């Protein structure tokens, strides 16, 4: 049976998470259709049609999908579920929000945050903040899956799937969108960046956080991340948080500055290819996972690093 991948997008464009989830969806072995539900989201649907391996794109355009509210989106996915053997979404804040709703309506136990596909019904997923990897087999007839996007490579482009417009079912609205504050940045998205530079509590203020990290990030095209301690202290916005309960990243290079390396933080970055730690405490646990470490004061080392780049 065919697999339905529900796209992560902002109407104007497809998010990188969709291309990564596409790789996991393809690994199930069946044809993959992609659902792009939004408002004026034709550009995102056209991008989805270009992903390699996509057999068809379903395009649903309506006011209620503009902000990806869980209630109408889940109702739409459920209305399409009959034709599919597996429903897949990325485990971003979007997929995590609506997908369990879909699973419950279908009476399916969702498999959350898979990091590998072993067979069409068996998957690996991290538990306990990534301190253990569980292999689970689903006994449900239909699979509902969210994908840890950092664990999969993005699908290539080069496809040219047809785009079919679908009409969503009517539903009573019990929720409505009021507003959003989305940070606009020219830097790459945290979960898609090839290089991530993160700061911790050692920065002592949001001014220092910007002053010492931004010039380096801009020089090497890095995204900026933060530890929970730095976010809790108000040095960095919440969406910078890397860790068990924040974002999971696996860039080519991760530079942890003034971060001690609590297990919850390591859970969000330890699959990075190269890890660098800069910390004045030579005993900090972050050094146990770092390929390269410098013991020293970030306020001295970071300006030197910027110069050396």
């Amino acid at each position, binding site marked *: 049976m065919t697999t339905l991948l529900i796209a992560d997008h902002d109407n104007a464009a497809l998010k990188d998470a969709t291309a990564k989830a596409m790789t996991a969806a393809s690994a199930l072995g069946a044809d993959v259709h992609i659902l792009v539900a939004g408002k004026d989201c034709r550009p995102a649907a056209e991008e989805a049609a270009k992903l390699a391996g996509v057999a068809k794109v379903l395009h649903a355009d309506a006011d209620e999908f503009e902000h990806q509210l*869980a*209630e109408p989106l889940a109702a739409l996915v459920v209305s399409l579920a009959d034709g599919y053997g597996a429903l897949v979404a990325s485990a*971003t*804040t979007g997929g*995590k*929000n*609506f997908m*369990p*709703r*879909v*699973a*419950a*309506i279908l009476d*399916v*136990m*969702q498999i*959350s945050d898979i990091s590998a596909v072993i067979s069409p019904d068996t998957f690996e997923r991290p*538990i*306990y903040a990534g301190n*253990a990897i*569980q*292999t*689970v*087999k689903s*006994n*449900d007839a239909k699979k509902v899956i969210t994908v840890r996007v950092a664990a999969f490579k993005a699908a290539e482009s080069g496809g040219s799937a047809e785009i079919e417009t679908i009409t969503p079912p009517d539903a009573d609205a*019990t*929720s*409505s*969108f*009021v507003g*959003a*504050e*989305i*940070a606009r940045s020219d830097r790459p998205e945290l*979960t898609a960046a090839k*290089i991530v530079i993160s700061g911790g509590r050692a920065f002592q203020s949001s001014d220092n956080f910007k002053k010492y990290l931004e010039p380096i990030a801009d020089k*090497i095209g890095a995204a900026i991340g933060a530890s929970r301690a730095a976010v809790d202290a108000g040095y960095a916005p*919440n*969406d910078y948080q890397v860790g*068990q*309960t924040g974002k999971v990243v696996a860039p080519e*290079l991760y530079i942890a500055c003034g971060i001690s390396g609590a*297990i*919850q933080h390591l859970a969000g970055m*330890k699959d990075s290819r*190269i*890890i*660098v730690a800069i910390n004045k405490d030579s005993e900090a646990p972050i*050094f*146990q*996972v*770092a*390929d390269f*470490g*410098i013991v020293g004061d970030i306020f001295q080392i970071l300006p*030197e*690093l910027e110069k*050396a*780049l």
Partner: protein
Amino acid sequence: MKIIVPVKRVVDYNVKVRVKPDGTGIDLANVKMSMNPFDEIAVEEALRLKEAGKAEEVVAVSIGPAQAIETIRTALAMGADRGILVKVDGPTEPLAVAKILREIVKAEEPGLVILGKQAIDDDCSQTGQMLAALLDRPQGTFASKVEIDGDHVMVTREIDGGHETVKLDLPAIVTTDLRLNEPRYASLPNIMKAKKKPVDEKTPDDFGVDVTPRLDVIKTADPPGRTAGVKLESAAELVEKLKEAGVL
């Protein structure tokens, strides 16, 4: 308005868990157990709404082994009014938990159910959304702010890229993110008082819910390990090494 807060007994936040050598799961013998940290935030939020005059009663519910009574007592010591313990031996999957909660919600008719956004043991992040779906009610997940406004609740949510605010019809389901509040500690007098607060004991059969797991756990393994690398003396040396590794 009544608020229901489901609370889960999990391995304490500070414990570094160990995988059993035979790969059958996590070694839980003699490990400190606590209330799931996100559920503490949920209890705190419910108590604050009660203290602000927006709610009259806070009911803590736990679904798990007999020892989950301790988790309910923790919620009662923080200030919840009464508890419901649904005893389940063996694993509890979010779908079964949501089905039991649905029956409790039908009987108790709360205005709000506040849950943690995820449990730090299985990291599923499903129960709140599933409960909302089974009740056909709106959901405000990953909340960093919750305001009751007449027949509605305004929920500010932490999402990729920033925040968004949604307005939900009551009754509604809210799941908590880290920065919603800072949970209080229970005082000794309140811990003593909590022992006298009523806790109902139930089983899944009382609600007609089959808790047989849908997922078979085939094995549990250690994650791929990393070993400590080299310590360098200067930023210049670091840049050189990173260029050699091809990441700069």
